[in-house]
């Protein structure tokens, strides 16, 4: 099934959903959001692409294998937690770096954020791995 309207709108919706997912991820510490829901939102963006076009297009859009994202995310989360070892603190002790940008604004970078990015990647990776693997077969058979 190909729908021109769906395809066209997907092209515009995709960046919006992706941006929104990153927005959710970044605001998570202070407002509703976070890596989990952000990752799910990103996964839904790719799923939309896979439905409107096909799995191959969605995969090429992702550029890297979704399974790699799982490992990457896990490593990132674990690594962010292990940073505290450098300061002789227990695993997952959060580290903060405050960078003054101007008089008014301070950029607060932290390991919980990196941890959350890891969660984001794992959720995105797992969801896409399952959904794309399920959808993949559909396309193959349809084309055959």
């Amino acid at each position, binding site marked *: 099934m190909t729908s021109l309207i769906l395809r066209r709108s997907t092209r515009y919706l995709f960046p919006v959903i992706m941006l929104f997912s990153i927005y959710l991820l970044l605001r998570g*510490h202070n407002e509703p959001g976070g890596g989990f829901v952000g990752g799910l939102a990103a996964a839904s963006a790719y799923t939309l692409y896979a439905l409107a076009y096909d799995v191959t297009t969605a995969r090429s859009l992702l550029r890297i294998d979704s399974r790699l994202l799982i490992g990457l995310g896990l490593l990132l989360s674990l690594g962010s937690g292990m940073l505290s070892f450098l300061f002789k603190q227990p695993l997952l002790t959060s580290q903060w770096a405050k960078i003054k940008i101007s008089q008014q604004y301070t950029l607060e970078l932290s390991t919980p954020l990196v941890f959350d990015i890891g969660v984001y990647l794992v959720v995105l990776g797992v969801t896409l791995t399952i959904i794309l693997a*399920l959808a993949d077969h559909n396309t193959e058979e349809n084309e055959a």
Partner: protein
Amino acid sequence: MMLMLVISGFLLAAFVPLMKRMWGVNSTYVAALLPLGLTIWYAFQYSAIVNGETLSWSRPWIEALGVHFSFQLDGLSLLFSLMIAGIGVFIVLYTKGYLHGHPMQHRFVMFTLMFMASMLGVVSADNVILLFIFWELTSFTSYLLIGFNHDEEASRKASLQALLVTGCGGLFLLAGLILMSIAAGTTEISGMIAQRDSIIDHPHYPVMLGLVLIGAFTKSAQTPFHFWLPNAMQAPTPASAYLHSSTMVKAGVYLLARLSPVLGGTPEWIWVLTGIGVLTLITGAVLASGQTYLKRLLAYTTVAALGAMVMAIGIGTPKALQAAVVFLLAHACYKAALFLVAGIIDHETGEKNVTKLGGLRKYMPLTGIAAMIAAASMAGIPLAFGFIGKEMLYTAVLHHPALTGLTIIAGAFFMLVAWQTGVRPFIASVKETPKHPHDPPWMMLAGPVVLGIITLSAGIIPGTLFDGLAGAATAAILAHPVDLHLHLWHGINTELLLSIVTIVLGAVAIILSAFWIKSAGKLRPCVRFGPDQGYQNLLAGLVNFAKWQTRMLQGGSLRRYLIIIVITMCGLFVMYFIRANFAFQLNDLTPISPPLVILSILVIIAGVAATMTNSRLGAVAAMGVVGFSAALFFIYFGAPDLAMTQLVIETLSIVLLVLAFYYLPPFATRSTWRGRMRDGVVAIFAGTVVTLLILVANGVQLSPAVSEYYAETSVPLAHGRNIVNVILVDYRGLDTLGEITVLAVAGIGSYALLRLRIKTGGKS
């Protein structure tokens, strides 16, 4: 320093693959440098240790439990460490020749180094928890070594058997050690010795003793656990020589000796140890005599020798302990040499059956000399080290006529086996073998020759060589200094007389051996009643039970899974309700408002529709309504994080379900009216229980301190205003890490299942 030395085997093992890439097969020589260096280091500690000093090394580890990462090197540890590292050198060298051209030679060397490190850990650990960890590591590494030829089923079975028997024993040991730690109030063995009285007089002393003994007996192949050792002969010969003669199987003996000042000396200790020890001695000796395969012959005598050592430790007098130490040392030398010779014979002739070997002295004279020295030691012939060990053993058992008699009989069998394995293959008339034999390369001969030299010199001048070491080891077992000396000649006394009797009996046994082997072959079917068969039955029973249980609980019907899960969970809740006397909290409930009523009705209608519909899409859509309504509930009660997640999850679930339709057969109503009624009852039961659960939970007053703590510290400590997220990524970060790991595993698992299905034909 000591930590690095003990674990250096693990460190080097990690680099073995790299070394192989750099130096090819010669990397084995490089690997042999490590045990050599360790031997030299231990040798340098000799004078200090013999003078009664102990080396200790300790670092805090699990402070909350009072567990330290502590090592101690005393006479007993030094004796074992020297044996482990020293024989390790020859084993690694031997591997070079034995596995010549084997593509996985470096892997074997790697396992050997890991095993050596674990073994050194066992004999150096002062903390019982540390000791247990190394103990299990020896089981694990020996599993890898026994199963080295993993493409043979017999190898896999034997390695699994060894792992299960020694691993299970290890768990018993752990329980025993923990009980001892609780009774003594310390986890250090050196501390327990001081607390001996509080352990011996503890009401649970028999339990502790039993648990520890099961651990030691399984490891040291004592009857009735002896069966795994002969089966483990599936291992490549260097592994058998290392693990099953000189080191691992002696770990149990080591443990008994080490804990002797803590647990020993009681009537229970003496009776069980001497009883099991002498039983094992006889079992091993008798079973050995009926064997014709070289390595199995040796394995059974190892069982017997281990029994003798356990017996001597059980007797517990200074003389008996010294006998155990000397016998252990002599046994390690001659048994490792004989195993290595057995490997050489097998390697050079391609023949494992001793009755088909003969006249090898013409082709492999050096091997023959080394073998005969080792055999003489095993038989207890004067001028070989084994003679000293045997004499001392007789001194130890002299007061017990029964023990003396049985030891003599075992000694005669030892002589028979020594004849069959070390002498006969070399002297009898030449027999045709699959390969044309000749002396092996020097790497393979080094072990038997050097061990032979030690055996001979220790047999002639035992006092000069081993007075210090044996004395220090005996002192460590007794926990007080002793003054004991080794001599070749004690004058004409009872022990000498017994030795002569043994040799005469042994000679008779050798003359009658052909007849005996034949009749023993006829008795072979009796093995059916032995413990090995018991093990097989137990294992088969376990597998059958697992099959039955899987059929019952995981028959493959999704509906059945759900029913079992739901009923189990709800049943547990109901049990809780009964215990809590149905104390439901009905006050303080949220007032019912129109939006809630509308939402609830929506959910109920959608739920009923999902079960009634005649199309899959309809069912999924109805379930979607339920899910989205749940999100609305969350919003209504002010949980935007949950609502948001619920919304996205619901969307993705629907996509997932629709995609999964493709794999399903056409929709049909398969369930009977009866089945549906049953499902309905279960569903209503589950709903009721969950509702009641919420009512109960409502009444439980959790300590407000927790939520208040989060609310107060979220901004100042964690710099975040969204408490839900702060908890997820900061306060309870470890939980989240665990959850995403589970998620990752689930994802990879699903992927694997999906690919598998597609590969095997997908849609049927």
